[in-house]
């Protein structure tokens, strides 16, 4: 077990380092912003004295490295500063938005992951058949679609023509759980369609990769049924790449929701991000980028750790 602990610790340290560098990059990006922060807020008519006073109040007169450290520590304590546009405390706004985004991602994941894995297993089982080829063409096409295309087609078909789901998913806390699920159905379906293809193809490839190995041949020669061979013999060994791709797609679900949220006017983090980019609300952009980057890095890290953990050679050292 010590080997695995060491590997995991190594990855964790690396992830922390990455997070640190990411925060540095985001800070530097904002530093390089042309124009003066306070002048932008106070307007053109501000006297140099007011600007200086405002700078002092915000701590902007300090050298960059000191400001970076303060910013980082504030972030760590959950203090994200204030939005320039609404003057609201960012932490509550972000918390609410992040919760919504995670809810959407979770609904999408609950549909997408089992669907993708079972479709992939079926494709591996009936490989080279009509079903396999059909799934192949469909997934190749659905990877090629821009997300907003899928989204609008779903709106057109399911919301406009058939009226099954609402076209705009305005959710709020007062709604019950199932009402919320109902309203997030279309964005979640869009995300599902976009990310199932990738997971399914990887599942199929991971299983088919193993089918040439001696123990599968052995199982086949014993006269086992193909279903049993795939499920009992191939699938457990293909788990590492499958888990990896599933977790990476979860990262995509959280980070890649931006477009979908904009289409469906879903009150999530992505929508907030786009709005604040448009209004150049820098603290919000900064905080959102950091949260997205953090989720991405953490989930990547999780994928790494899980694929190490699911490797039997590392789990049971000789």
């Amino acid at each position: 077990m010590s080997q695995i602990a060491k590997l995991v610790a190594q990855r964790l340290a690396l992830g922390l380092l990455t997070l640190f560098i990411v925060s540095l990059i985001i800070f530097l990006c904002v530093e390089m912003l042309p124009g003066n922060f306070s002048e932008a807020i106070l307007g053109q008519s501000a006297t140099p004295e007011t600007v200086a006073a405002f700078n002092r109040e915000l701590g902007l007169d300090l050298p960059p490295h000191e400001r970076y450290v303060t910013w980082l520590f504030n972030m760590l304590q959950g203090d994200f500063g204030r939005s320039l546009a609404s003057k609201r405390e960012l932490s509550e706004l972000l918390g609410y938005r992040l919760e919504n985004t995670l809810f959407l991602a979770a609904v999408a994941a609950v549909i997408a992951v089992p669907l993708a894995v079972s479709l992939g297993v079926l494709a591996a089982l009936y490989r080279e058949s009509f079903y396999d080829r059909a799934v192949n063409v469909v997934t190749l096409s659905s990877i090629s679609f821009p997300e907003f295309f899928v989204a609008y087609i779903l709106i057109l078909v399911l919301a406009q023509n058939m009226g099954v789901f609402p076209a705009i998913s305005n959710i709020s806390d007062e709604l019950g759980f199932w009402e919320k699920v109902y309203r997030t159905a279309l964005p979640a379906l869009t995300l599902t369609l976009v990310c199932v293809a990738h997971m399914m193809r990887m599942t199929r490839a991971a299983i088919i990769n193993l089918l040439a190995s001696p123990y599968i041949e052995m199982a086949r020669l014993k006269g086992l049924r193909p279903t049993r061979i795939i499920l009992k013999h191939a699938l457990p060994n293909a788990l590492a790449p499958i888990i990896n791709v599933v977790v990476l797609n979860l990262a995509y679900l959280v980070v890649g929701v931006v477009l979908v949220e904009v289409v469906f006017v879903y009150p999530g983090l992505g929508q907030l991000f786009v709005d604040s980019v448009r209004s150049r609300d820098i603290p919000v952009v900064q905080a959102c980028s950091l949260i997205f980057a953090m989720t991405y890095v953490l989930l990547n890290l999780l994928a790494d750790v899980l694929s190490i953990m699911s490797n039997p050679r590392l789990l049971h050292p000789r």
Partner: protein
Amino acid sequence: MTMPLTGNTFGGQASPWFSRIAVAAVHFFLLVLFLQNVAADFWSAIPGFIFIHAYSIVVLAYWSSLDRTAAGDTVIVTLTLEFVLIALLFWDRFSAWPWSTLFGLALVQFCAFAAVRYWKDLRQAPRSAWFGLIVILVYVMVAATAPIIAPFSETEIVGSEYDVWSNKNLLGTDNLGRDMFTRLIYGGRNTVGIAFITTLLAFVVGGLAGILAAAMRGWVDQVLGRLVDILMAIPSFILARLILTIVGTSVPSLILVIALLDATRVFRLARAVSMNVVVLEFVEAASLRGEGLWWLIKSEILPNILPPLVAEFGLRFCFVFLFLSGLSFLGLGIQPPTADWGSMVRDNATLITYGDITPLLPAGAIALLTIGVNFVVDWFLHKASGLKD
């Protein structure tokens, strides 16, 4: 044209000159008829246009199986004359965009020439690859000759807002009353062009850095590798938007930022595949006989890693293309009034709630091209890997 002339049924001689002239004459006769028709009604002429060229393509295809050089020569002569004719007839549109139109026409000629040159390979391509190739060809042609095909100018307001489909405005008008069909054509030119340049830049930078890292090893490899690791740790969509918010969304900065982010992926691939080549004996032999680094890259490594890189180019192009239209959709990509497929979807999205599919057309155009490129890449990978059906 280094292709040896084999399988010539004319007993080693080129096809008779009079048949070439006959085909060209028929082609131009039909073309003149068609162009006369254009003056009356632009749109009813399209079937005629397609027919004439389909006819010429069939004849050329027959020839190229007999005599490649003659077919190639004929393509050049025919197309050049055709261009002159088009330029004269559409003089007002041509003179508005002389250089881009000339460049576009040259591009069309190049495509036709390449098709004749590689006809043998093309004939063996599977149906899906053919579909992809035709889609790409149509897009290239439309994008290249946009000023000639488009009935209006890109930013011209020609009617009221959200007009329905009619003879005058083939696909209706957009949210500002500009012709949708025209914008669709110009949007293709802008989006595809910028995505192509971006991918090319990403490949030059990323590919070169990757090969250098593999060939030089040591600290170069370490520094470049860590730099790429960091850039890849941040989700590219987020980083791109963050940087674009800061530097502003002009076309050059758009190209540079996306190219830089994509170069990291190309770097990974280029480094991985050239690592496999660098350790082989022939590279060692070349470096032992004193060849320089550039020579090694150019003549030993690059030819051996080209197939995966070309396939990756196709996939990267799709990715950049989708990325770019995603950014435009969010209002961070190509800026108005320049037409662009992503922003066209967003600007006209309201129509969808009334059951009108017009705003879906640019999105569909994006999807179609991406599918086409994917199919061609699939075929190319299959061919390059040497697999037999």
